[in-house]
């Protein structure tokens, strides 16, 4: 369990990083937190001759919540993102999912952007990027481009990144007024990859940005006592699809008051079970994973419907929807 011989480069600037990437395109790998790559190297499942360590690069550790966007630099650890109060206000699903990413010690080292670049279908954050409609900014010596999650993810552990490209940041849109989001998964052990995981974003007509979040309120009631009506639902999955595919379920849920969610749970679970394509392995059969995904989705849907309004939109001013992730290539 010792890696093959390799050379470690430790650039200080993005430009230098991009030069190194260009020079070692065929046999180089970027390393940041190393939580996925180091085991791969030690087991000699990969043997790159050059490792480009970006942990000393200036300008990659930014974490900002501005307008409708959470911008996560390539060096931001899972843990920092998980614990950031502004992120929690803007879109609580990030923190909720991050708490399922391995263990605190690993989250302290591992980076969210690294996880997205690794594109493991068992990983939570590639899916959260897709579910929230996020994107990544990518740089190389040739220029900069922006890729949506859909454009980035090609297959299991496979992205559309060119060998000489670096993801400099990931951008997660904030929740919009009226939206509620949640994530849950079942793992064998705390911190393991989920046997199945589900993220949901529910839209409702209760767009009152001042709505308070108070668990003591009766289930389903808005701040003003008005019952919200569901206007949309989308779902993303962990460990049961090859890539972070998102299903839109608006046609099943639209028009249902949140206190009548029981009437649509079965239809939602059923649509999800038809959509996903789980594999069986030594931990669970494909049938069980499919069943489990439906159960988790149903429970999550009920939980969101009981949740009082949105946590996300209240902390941000309304206004224009984030524009970054809609940009096309500017290479």
């Amino acid at each position, binding site marked *: 369990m010792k890696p093959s011989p390799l050379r470690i480069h430790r650039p200080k600037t993005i430009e230098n990083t991009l030069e190194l990437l260009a020079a070692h395109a065929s046999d180089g790998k970027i390393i940041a937190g190393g939580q996925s790559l180091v085991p791969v190297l030690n087991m000699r499942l990969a043997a790159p001759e050059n490792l480009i360590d970006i942990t000393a690069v200036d300008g990659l550790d930014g974490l900002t919540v501005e307008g409708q966007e959470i911008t996560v630099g390539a060096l931001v650890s899972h843990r920092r993102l998980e614990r950031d109060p502004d992120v929690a206000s803007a879109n609580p699903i990030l923190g909720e999912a991050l708490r399922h990413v391995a263990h605190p010690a690993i989250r302290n080292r591992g980076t969210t952007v690294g996880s997205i670049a690794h594109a493991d279908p068992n990983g939570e954050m590639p899916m959260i990027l897709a579910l929230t409609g996020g994107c990544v900014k990518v740089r190389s010596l040739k220029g900069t481009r922006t890729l949506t999650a859909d454009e980035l993810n090609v297959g299991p552990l496979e992205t559309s990144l060119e060998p000489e490209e670096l993801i400099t940041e990931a951008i997660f849109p904030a929740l919009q007024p009226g939206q509620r989001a949640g994530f849950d998964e079942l793992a064998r052990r705390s911190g393991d990859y989920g046997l199945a995981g589900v993220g949901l974003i529910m839209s409702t007509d209760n767009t009152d940005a001042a709505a308070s979040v108070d668990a003591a309120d009766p289930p389903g009631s808005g701040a003003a006592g008005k019952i919200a009506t569901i206007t949309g639902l989308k779902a993303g999955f962990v460990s049961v699809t090859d890539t972070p595919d998102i299903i839109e379920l608006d046609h099943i849920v639209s028009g249902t008051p949140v206190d009548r969610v029981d009437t649509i749970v079965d239809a939602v679970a059923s649509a999800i079970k038809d959509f996903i394509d789980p594999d069986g392995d*030594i931990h669970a059969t494909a049938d069980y994973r499919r069943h489990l995904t439906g159960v988790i989705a149903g429970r999550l849907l009920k939980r969101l419907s009981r949740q009082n309004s949105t946590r996300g939109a209240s902390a941000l001013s309304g206004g224009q929807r984030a524009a970054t992730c809609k940009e096309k290539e500017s290479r």
Partner: protein
Amino acid sequence: MTTRMFGQKIKRREDPRLVTGNGRYLDDLANGSVAAAFVRSPHAHADIVDIDVTGAIDVEGVIAVWTHEDLPGQAADRLPMLIPHPSIVAPHTGFALAPDHVNFVGEPIVMVIARDRYIAEDAAGRIEIDYEFLDPIVGVEQSREGQRVVHAGMDDNVAAHYVQEVGDVDAGLDRAPHTLDLDLEFERSACMPMEGKGVIAAWNREDESLQVHSSTQTSTGLRAALAARLEIPLTRVEVITPDVGGAFGVKINHPWPEELAVACAARALGTTVKWTEDRREHFISSAHERAQTQNVKVGFDDDGRILSLDVKFWHDNGAYIPYGVIVPLNTSTHVMGPYNIANYRVEYWSLYTNTVMVTPYRGAGRAHAVFMMERTVDAIADELGMDRTQVRLNNFVREFPHPMGVTMQDGAEGCLDSGDFVTSLDKLKALVGWDEFEACRDQARAEGRKVGLGIGCYVESTGAGPYEGGHIEVESSGRVNVWTGLTTHGQAHATVFAQIVADALGVPIDTVHVATGDTRKLPYSVGTWGSRGAVMAGNALHLTAQKVKAKALKIVGESLEADPEDLEIVDGIISVKGDPSAAMPLAAVSVLSNPLRYAFDESAKAATQFAKESTAEEPSVKPGEQPGLEEQEFFSPLRSTVANGMHAAIVETDPETADITIRRYCVVHDCGPMINPMVVEGQVHGGVAQGVGGALYERMAYDTDGQLLNASFMDFLMPFASEIPHVETDHLETPSPLNPLGIKGAGEAGTIPTATTIASAIEDAEGFPIRAMPLDPSTLWELRNKHEAGEVPGLKSRGLDSAVSAPPSIAGHQ
């Protein structure tokens, strides 16, 4: 009077050093020495056609590349068959390096020695081996069929076959009013210590001696084996065991192929060679445990009294059996547990497969036995509609000693020497709230939740012989040095042995310093395994300390002209009872005990030849005596002492996801008088943790090609602290008549009944029988589906109530 140390909950004295990172484990030693790496078979069953090492030799920094033909003399022979037993019909062991045939994925073939481990692995990757593939035999079923064989020349795969019978089983079954027939399965797991194996061999060219450090459970055993295989005098070999990061059984086998190959290389190269096992190596080339297929036929009366028990099991021993048949033998002798069963027959077949070999893992076959018995007792209760504890009460042994009629692993007849099972069960029922559980179940059901209560009882033969020893020396400073030959790998030996010595010698515990596992000081020892450390070395040290004390009192008696019978030692001061003015510290006695010519310090002056009056009639050291306040003594028991315990668990199973959560876990334990109750509880907690692993998480997933699919901690689900329930304990202390301290072993206790206890609880929650462990949510969900489809019948006593009918609820799931 000094506080008696025995029985005190004093904190582990070794912990400040270990938890502050100051432990010295094998890989911390001999930095800068050359390193070994091994090329291992990637195939489960193959002939080796050709080995091409050319590519490795060219790698800069490579020092040597060895195949089987480089092994000298007896080191090239098959590894020893350590524990012969009459049941073994076809003994097979492997080689240090496989010459022409491999029998499991992971078997070592080539050793590369290089400047460091990185280079050694680079070179190992360049070695090319051609194989002629053979079909592998994987699992009990395929091995039992015997259509193909693991070892050429055999007609089947049976390594060992054994039958023991007490009473007349057939007659007992014939006259029983009720009978049941159960098929059971138990999966593979493994010890998985935090630190894997490892060895450092240093050859001293000046005196042609070998010093070996090994992460082993038996330094004396390894020393003898290496001396024999390297064909060098025993006196030129020493084995030292440094801090060991856990063992749990896997480090008792010896010599491991790597220990022998590395020692040979150290001698050939005249240097120090180190090999530290990595985790993947540990998974595929150390040892596993547990896989058995079992059948139980039981006859019983209307009160659930067992009249006759007929047990057959098929034990997967992997590719080789260097450690003999200890695991299946222990299974066969522990089935009867705490029950009085007049007619008992056990028959086992120990079978070869093309997988990693099986040697003892904490519990060493006993968990399998308890699984058979306790699943059977629960089935009897269900058949008769009786409370499960009542069936147990009706079968308990109530008179001690209770001869079991079967021959144990130590060659002696098994005998329950002490215990009080009725009281233990009362304590357990009170602890878990057995009689109030139906109310809990009703309340949970009303909330749409499923809960179940389970129980498991066991006995464990502990403290097997042949012997252990102690060596105690009192320095002239008053420091008490204590050695025992057995090894330490997480046990609290430095604490509990010091407690025993402090009491027996009458000194403050702070002056007592314990060292273990070093053949330079005490070359006579067996090793640490089978819950024997405290029983064997504890009693040996108790006897040794008494001997030292007697010598000290004799010396003081002569000096003070008092009868030693009138003297006592309190806090390291010897005085005449009732006359504190006539006193002498033990440090001074140590000085007096060693007549000196040279005064190297002030205290030594008192022992020099002109310090006292000349007594021309007697020499300084009288005939039959030795200088120094230093003694050695050994303890050898008649037979193993049998500890016992009972576990109960409350589990919750999610009605939809089939996720299994242990809500409570209770243990009542009887290992006799406890030297240190805190240490006993720590042992029980750790044991339960490993038991939970075996019950719900761990299995070795071999595919049909004999590839281990989960050879990493990512996919082999050893539970984390987050998966282990709080363990509630209560104790009973019935002393054993078999040793001076009256103690029984505790090391393996927590692990033995855990799988069956959790199976019992899941069965109770689900309403259908659980006959195979481990159990994961996916498998439980499949079982539910089969139950609903009528393929798995429900428990009889539940009737219609047992179906999965609870409405799904979101309560309690957030």
